[in-house]
């Protein structure tokens, strides 16, 4: 089943719609801008993941995961606009809260135990 972005929009606006596989040239300029923003945010998430893999210290990885979480919030919001479901914004808000709390929890844990005790070099 070939699902394109127009099909996603049609499926979001009416749950009984069965038209999938519309071409990508039938998008209006608004949806093209939202799609370009989607790809930009996805590329930034990839860059953050590269830093999370490469990062020599553990704090580099925490920074990369924090950035990944914030970009996920934006991505969920934009996908919610593309698929005409405003309920995605609740999910984005919940994920923003979870991301912040998890970063603070990991850093509080670093007060009690050394985070980098298994690393070879700092």
């Amino acid at each position, binding site marked *: 089943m070939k699902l394109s972005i127009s099909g996603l929009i049609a499926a979001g606006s009416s749950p009984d719609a069965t038209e999938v596989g519309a071409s990508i040239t039938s998008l209006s300029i608004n949806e093209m*801008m939202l799609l370009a923003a989607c790809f930009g945010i996805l590329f*930034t998430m990839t860059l953050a993941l*590269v830093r999370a893999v490469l990062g020599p210290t553990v704090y580099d990885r925490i*920074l990369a995961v924090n950035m990944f979480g914030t970009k996920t*919030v934006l991505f969920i919001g934009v996908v919610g606009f593309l698929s005409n479901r405003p309920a995605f914004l609740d999910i984005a808000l919940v994920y923003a809260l979870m991301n912040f709390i998890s970063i*603070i929890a990991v850093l509080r844990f670093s007060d009690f135990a050394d985070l980098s005790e298994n690393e070879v070099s700092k």
Partner: protein
Amino acid sequence: MMMLQITGGIVLLLGTVICLIGGLGLLRLPNFFARTHGGSITDTLGAGLAILGMVLYTLGMEDLTTLEQFLVIAKLISIAVFILVTSPISGHALTRAAFEAGLGGEGSPANLQEIETISHGVYGPASLQENPIEETVASPLQEGSHD
């Protein structure tokens, strides 16, 4: 209302470009503290601009009633306020945790004993050890407190 939607889309793309610059800085900057600086600042600004763009996009949608527009804009503004407040807090906490773990090299707290012997203290040339702050606040236990 196409102009409002297109303006919202342009602001959203601007926020995305700023996030891309931050992600590029995350890969190219030389050490950890520079990466925190570049990543956290562009993260906050890009997220704020992207959500502002989404607000403008929603204001330009004609097939929503005013109540639905208000709900979506309220959720977007709460996400924006939360990210704008907590993203600098996370960046500061991360930098402070890394600094106290000794990542800063010469200025890290492992060398605090050497810092105390320098003529100007930690706070600069007019250090607090030489000019202590005199207490002028009256304590509630002294005479003259409220009745």
